[in-house]
Structures are given as C-alpha cells and as structure tokens.
C-alpha cells in the first residue's frame, strides 16, 4: 500500500509527457497510385548536404533527381550531356568548352547560367566543400565565362578522369543564392524537389514546376529506408512499397520468384569487395605471401555462399563495365591449396599469425569467416577482430594502417587509382604503377584504356589485394513499374524515367 503514491506519480508523469510530446510526428506510407511510387532502399542519408557529409546515400537520392550536373552517367556507364548540351575539348586536352542548355532554372526560379557553373566549380575548390572527393576538382586551373551559355574550364594538365568525375556529386550545380542550408534544403535544376525528409524513415521527391527538360511521368517518388532486410522484403510482399532497389539479403530472392508479381533485375555495380593486405608492413610485405593468399581462397565458393551466386569474379580492381576490364586476370590465381602452401614455405611464414580486422557489417562478416576458414586450412593462424563501423574501422585500419588484413567493399567508381597513392591503407608503393595511372589520365582515350589495362595487370601480378568479388545490384520491382535503373554505376539512383504501365 505504501507504494501507491509512487504508482500515481509514475502514471501521471507518463500521461503528461505523452500528451505534451505528441505534438508533431511525421511519417509517410502513402499508398502508391498511378503518379506516385515508393522505392525501398537500405542506407539512409544523414542529411541533404553531400558537400560536407560523406556517404553514398545522399547523392544516391539527390543527384540527377534534384541536382543536375553538366554531364551525367547513363545506366550503361557512359557520359551523356545534361545541363551542357555539348562540349569541345582543345587539342592539348586541357580546355573544355561547354555549351549550356537554354532556359534552365533552379526550383526556386533562379536562372542557371555560365556564371553559375563558374561559381560552382570554384566553390568545390574552396573550403566550403570538405569531403575528400573534392580533390578530383584540383586539376581545374580556372573557369572562364564566355557568354551566358558558354563556359570554358581550363585544366592544369590533361585529365581523362575529370569529365567522368563531373558526373558525380562534385559536378552538381547548386544555386549560389540558395546554398546556405544545404543540410536541410536542396535547390537544384532537376525535375524533382525534396518535399519531405523524415530522418529514420523516408525522403519524398515531388515534381517541381517549370522544369527545363522533359517532365518525368511520376508526380511523387518516395525513398523509404530500411535498416532490416526482412522488414524491406515484407514491405514489398505486403505492397507497402513498389520496388526494392539493391536487395540486401540475396538468399531471400526466392521469395520473389513469382514473375507475375515481381520482376528481378540483376544489375552491375562498381562495388569491389576487397580482401586488403597491408603491403607496407608485416608478412604481407612479401609478394609471395600475398600470392599464396590469392591461391588459398576459393572465390567462386565465397560468391556462392555470400551472394547467392550473383557476385562476379574480377581478378583486379576493375569492374567489367569499365573499358579497361581484362577478363584474363580473373583466372590469374586459381584455387590451389598446394601452390599456396608452397609459396608460404618459400617465404618462410608457415603458421604465421594474421591480424584480420574487419568492420561489423553483416556481409563482411560472412566473407571474413570464409576467408578465415581457407587461410586456416593452409596453416595460417587468423585472429579475427571485429571493429565498430564506421568510426573504429576508419580510425584503426583505414587511417591508422594498424592491420594485416581486412575486408570492405569499395563502391566508388574507377577507384583503381587509389593504388597509386602510397599513403592509402593498401600500403602499396610502386613507381611503375603510379606512372601508368598518371599516363592513363593524361593520354588519349585509347591510351587511357591500354595504360589502365597494364595497371590492372600489374596489380594482379603483385597480388596487392585479393579481389574477392564484384557485388551485383539486384532490384525487385512490381512488373507494372518501369524505368527503375538496373545498374548502380554512377552515384545516383535516377528515378526520372519511372513510370507505371
């Protein structure tokens, strides 16, 4: 009986706070009609500002849909005109003159002109942008406005890579007069604006008035974010969403085998799942030990177990969609336990201990346990150490280089050049490789392909890493919804072609 006041008080507090705090919750689960669609995704944007916040989720939602660049990447990975209708390159490959589309406005009505381009490129080079990707703009020397619809970008040296990077987030065109609160407002020239951003739930794109290009078919597209794969699958099965873009539990594909209800798209990505080895210290300084690791692991088996057979063998840091992919590298190190053991004993590292420090991500954990199994079979002692991702992994492995071996998927496009940076966590310092990458960037388009082919082959020969597999991009869509991009080759999930049939 004595406790009665305690009860009353407790209940009173609960009720009062309930009443006081239920002011404004927001959410959305709008049933899709002919002019709206809801797409399920996994990674949620932290905010709307990709100039200062890293991560794939923000450009995935906003690029091409809300923000547009001079050029864009089509779904086959080719550069296409967007805000620039055409461009000319000078004979020394250093000056790019863009002709801009006419009558382009931002969603707030502001005009997009050559001055806007100049401001944006200079802005990327300024302190306003903080993410590391801004360094792709370093090669730009100056920007000259010719007239309202013509602008010339002068590079300090020829760079094939630069125009490609202009299709990514660094090429996005912001309104100079509306760029103070990028984290919460997004003003672009694209066909959609951000109508709602409910953190922990969804992001709603709504068509704007006065879009300069072709109007998309759908009035409203909602991205709904799921951190649990089962929740996402159930949402599609029960019809709360219309598509899953990038299925995370590939073994559950069989849930969607009914072709009258679902279409499965098997698309390509740039996401190489890399078993990295620290080339700069420990036993992996020795190329023979790295080669032994490559021989010791049955990558096809890992693809079967981890990706339900959807992953692809790559053999180097190049996805098959890049022009310099070389299929002969795929079989450079067939699964051969004896060969591995031979190399290990040659190098004199039998029974060595490997510090295998992995991020606490489900897909990595599955691959890592298999790698551990294979490496134990050839006599290594593997200490698996799971680090909290992102903070701890970035700190210890990526920045601190305090590791022997790790796994992460490298999702960035054309990231073979990371091997040319000796301070990168690979610890790979090879002058020949660095010069190949530099020459590829400076040369003609054909030279770029041949030099990068040589570079990829060199990586394979040096067994710098073990490229376990290339992730595929599986989407499940209701059959009547068309236009969902199958591939994830650029940074955006372009929904401007979505339509109900």
């Amino acid at each position, binding site marked *: 009986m004595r406790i009665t006041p305690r009860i009353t008080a407790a209940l009173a507090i609960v009720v009062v706070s309930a009443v006081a705090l239920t002011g404004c919750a927001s959410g959305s689960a709008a049933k899709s009609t002919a002019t709206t669609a809801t797409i399920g995704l996994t990674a949620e944007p932290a905010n709307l500002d990709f100039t200062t916040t890293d991560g794939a989720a923000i450009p995935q939602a906003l690029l091409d849909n809300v923000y547009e660049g001079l050029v864009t990447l089509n779904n086959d990975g080719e550069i296409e005109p967007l805000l620039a209708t055409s461009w000319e390159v000078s004979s020394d490959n250093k000056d790019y003159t863009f002709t801009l589309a006419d009558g382009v406005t931002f969603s707030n009505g502001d005009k997009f002109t050559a001055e806007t381009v100049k401001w944006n490129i200079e802005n990327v080079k300024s302190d306003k942008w903080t993410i590391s990707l801004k360094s792709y703009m370093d090669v730009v020397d100056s920007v000259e406005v010719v007239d309202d619809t013509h602008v010339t970008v002068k590079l300090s040296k020829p760079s094939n890579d630069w125009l490609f990077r202009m299709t990514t987030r660094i090429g996005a065109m912001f309104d100079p007069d509306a760029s103070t609160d990028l984290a919460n407002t997004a003003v672009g020239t694209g066909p959609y604006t951000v109508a709602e951003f409910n953190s922990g739930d969804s992001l709603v794109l709504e068509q704007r008035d006065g879009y300069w290009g072709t109007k998309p078919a759908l009035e409203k597209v909602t991205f709904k974010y799921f951190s649990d794969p089962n929740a996402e699958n159930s949402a599609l099965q029960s019809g709360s969403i219309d598509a899953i873009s990038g299925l995370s539990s590939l073994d*559950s594909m069989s*849930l969607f085998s009914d072709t009258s209800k679902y279409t499965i798209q098997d698309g390509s990505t740039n996401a190489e799942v890399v078993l990295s080895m620290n080339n700069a210290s420990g036993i992996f300084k020795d190329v023979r030990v790295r080669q032994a690791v490559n021989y010791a692991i049955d990558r096809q088996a890992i693809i079967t177990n981890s990706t339900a057979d959807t992953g692809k063998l790559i053999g180097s840091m190049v996805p098959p969609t890049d022009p310099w992919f070389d299929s002969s590298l795929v079989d450079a190190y067939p699964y051969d336990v004896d060969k591995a053991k031979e190399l290990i004993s040659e190098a004199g590292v039998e029974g060595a201990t490997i510090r295998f420090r992995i991020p606490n991500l*489900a897909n990595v954990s599955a691959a890592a346990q298999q790698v551990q199994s294979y490496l134990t079979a050839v006599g290594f002692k593997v200490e698996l150490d799971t680090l909290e991702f992102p903070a701890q992994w970035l700190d210890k492995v990526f920045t601190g280089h305090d590791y022997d071996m790790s796994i992460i998927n490298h999702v960035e496009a054309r990231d073979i050049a990371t091997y040319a940076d000796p301070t990168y966590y690979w610890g790979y310092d090879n002058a020949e490789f660095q010069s190949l990458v530099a020459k590829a960037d400076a040369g003609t388009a054909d030279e770029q392909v041949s030099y990068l082919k040589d570079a990829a082959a060199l990586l394979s020969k040096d067994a710098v890493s073990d490229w376990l597999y290339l992730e595929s991009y599986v989407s499940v869509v209701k059959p009547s919804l068309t236009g969902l991009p199958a591939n994830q080759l650029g940074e955006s999930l372009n929904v401007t072609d979505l339509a109900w049939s």
Partner: protein
Amino acid sequence: MTVLMKPRMSTRHRRSIPASLIAGAVIVGLVIIAALVSFIWTPFDPTITTTDRLLSPSGEHFLGTDALGRDVFSQLLVGARTTLYVGIISVGFAAIIGVPLGILSAAGPRWLGELIMRFIDLLLAFPALLLAIIFGAAFGTSTFSAMMAIGIATAPAFARLARSGALQVLSTEYVLAARIARRGELDIAVRHVLPNILGMLIVQASVCYGVAVLAESGLSFLGFGTPPPTPTWGRMLQEAQAIMFTNPMLVVWPAVCIVVAVLGFNLLGDGLRDRFDPKMEDNR
C-alpha cells in the same frame, strides 16, 4: 528490471523439492553437458565454412548446414559454451559490484549508505543497451565487453537486494548480540549478513542469467554481440534472420535453444527461491 522482484512457482511445500527446481536443474544441466561435450567432440568443426550450404538435416548433418555451409548441430554445441560464459561474466560483474555496495550501504556509516544509494540510482538511470553499445565501441566488440556492460547495468538490482537483505539481518537479535560483543560492523556483515542473503542472491543470479542470454541475442541483432568466428546462439539467430522466411529452421534451432536455456535458468531460479528463500513475503 526483471531482476528486482522474483516471481516464483510455488509457495507451499517449502520443504519438498519443487518441480520447477528439478526441471530447471535438468535443463541447465543439459546446457552444461552440451558445452562440456563440445570441448571433446563435435560432428564437424563449427567454424569451417564449406560450399555444402543450406543442407537439410541428414545422418551426416543432424540439423543441416547454414548459409556458409557450417554444421548447425556442431555450432549449437559450441554455442552452449558461449551461453554459459555470457551469463557468468554478466552475473559475475553484477554481483561483484552490486553485493559489496549493497552491504556497505547498509552496514557502513549513514552518509556512505546514502551516497552509495544515490550512485545506484544514477546507474539504474543509464540504459543497459546504450552501455553495451558504447563499451563495444570503446573496447572492441567482444562478448566480454558486451556482458560487462550488461553486468554493470544489472548491478543496481543486486545492490538493492543486498541492501534490503542486510538491513533486515542487521536489525535481528543475534546481530544486536554481536554488536554488544563489540564486533565491527563489517565483520558482522561478512559473518552474518552474507550467509543470510546468499539464497536470495542465488535466485537473483539465475534470473539475471536468463536476461543476459537474451541480451546477447538482442545485441547480436544490432551487430554488437559476440563477434565471429565464435559460434553463439545469438549470432546464429542474427545470421539466419535475413533468410528466416526461406530457411526457417535455421532460425528455429538457435531460437529453441535460447528459449529452453532461458526457461531453464528462470525455472531454476524460481525453484531455488521456493526452496531456500526464508523471507519471501518481504524482501524488497
């Protein structure tokens, strides 16, 4: 919070052995046996991955294989070890921190008692899950760091129990007698209080044990449980969770193990309480 009160199975027949005690002891015994057996024998090495994935149960693989081609039965056997370990660490931490604080707060000077109880209040206000996640981030994700956090978060329950038990014992006649004999308060506490509240503490421990096993599976779901490659029931559940509607049995086996083990510890606790708790009416 499950640990502040102790439900029970039976209140009469205090002298006979309650059925719950027997059932609980049998289940816990099975878990211990499974763990011991796993040290000398498992059908397969539970950490070796193969391409024989998602096999149905057979004479070779009694319960089939998981998505990475590992033998499920072998993993369950070894997982029993982790289950025991998880409980021992978290309950151990809770008891080692909580019991001395509780007794000290009852037997020590008044200001100290007050200070300790305020500290306990504060500790109780920190969410256990948050501690576990922060410890995982700070000391690396490991069973030990997760269970240390769960242990610290359950320590207040032990402290309160020990304090209330100690206060009762300290007001009894034989303690008064000891006081008159000019024994030190601490000496009295250790001599008289601890043996008297031991029964209650054992009950508390068995209940906490179940809570810890469940907490481990919840943390695994969030990626902060026992890291690979050590097989645990919680992580088996988490790994199979993504495919639970295509391969439901992979979820069922570890889930049944967790349910039965937690049930066993709870029953054991209830039974012990019915059997040994001398002051059931008024122990809070």
